[in-house]
């Protein structure tokens, strides 16, 4: 199949639109402090699961299309203009592999602990989220949880996750 110059440009812009939509829609649907519906969560999960592989395939297709355009274009600015769609596809493809929530919230994979007497970082009035499993009493300061949102530990032999 021979791809014409104009249809190659059309195809390239269509790929840009698909890649951008696929990556941007879940980010927009799953905003902190905004409500979600079961349907919007379902769509977001679907897009988030498929976007890493799909964006890579589409990025390769975009490159191939760009080669066609490069060969077919006689003027320098036709070639130079390729930078923008390729850059957009590249950025979105990279983003599909990122978990941007971890930039914001920084879950604590390995929490570290202090004895009660060493806990000089807390005042008596500060709230804690406390659990006690088999006599192992652990407190998660709420102000720290409001930042990390997730902390994990083994308490009294039971692996737990604390979430806020």
């Amino acid at each position: 199949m021979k791809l014409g110059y104009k249809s190659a440009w059309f195809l390239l812009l269509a790929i840009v639109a698909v890649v951008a939509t696929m990556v941007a829609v879940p980010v927009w649907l799953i905003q902190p402090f905004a409500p979600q519906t079961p349907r919007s969560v379902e769509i977001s999960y679907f897009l988030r699961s498929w976007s890493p592989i799909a964006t890579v395939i589409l990025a390769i297709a975009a490159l191939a299309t760009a080669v066609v355009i490069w060969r077919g274009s006689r003027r320098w600015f036709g070639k130079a203009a390729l930078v923008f769609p390729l850059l957009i596809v590249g950025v979105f493809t990279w983003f599909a592999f990122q978990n941007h929530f971890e930039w914001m919230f920084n879950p604590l994979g390995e929490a570290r602990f202090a004895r009660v007497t060493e806990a000089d970082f807390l005042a008596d009035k500060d709230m804690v989220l406390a659990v006690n499993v088999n006599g192992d009493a652990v407190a998660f300061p709420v102000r720290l949880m409001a930042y990390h949102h997730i902390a994990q530990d083994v308490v009294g032999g039971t692996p737990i996750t604390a979430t806020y």
Partner: protein
Amino acid sequence: MHDEQTGSWWQQITGAAIQGGLKGQKLTEVPSDEVSFGVWKRENPNGRVMRPDPKILAEDKYDPEDWESQVGKMRVTTSATLDNRLEPRAIVVGLTVGGQSKAYAFSAIEKQSPVLDFVGGKDIVLLLGDDKRSVRAFERDLDGKKLEFFIKPDTNEIVDAETGSVWDFSGKAVSGELTGKQLTKVQVIKDYWFDWKTYHPDAQLFGAGSR
């Protein structure tokens, strides 16, 4: 939140997987307590406390002291219809007994503690801690006997009307006839009214004549 093993998505308030390979599964809830550090360390002198992450602390990224009042001012948008019996960001204490959920405005507990109530077929009591911030709930049926609690005005102690025994914030009788007896704890969660209502659409509201 998501897990790194299957990539499933989990809903924080229920612990249920809502998308992904583990969809429909639910994590076992560990009973927890949201109390002030002062109350907690008195009861758990040998406990351990999670430290701040030194890196985050150095970058000064933890929320400021007054983060709660700042979040309290944020706009509320939900997909559910708001229940305007309380302000959306009013702090409530929620509990579920025998399948029945009920919310108590924190301000009502502040005024009326100990709050005596009957929810889901059980007599319960809600107590405000002496820090005026921590709230706990207990069943108040003890060995087949229903207890009525009140605050003794002169000493500020929690006393039951039946035996005059004195109870502490952990639900334990510390003096009087019932010394050593322990009330059964009811799990409570502090939440914003709009959020609690979203996850418990059938919840009753204390003092709202919703019984």
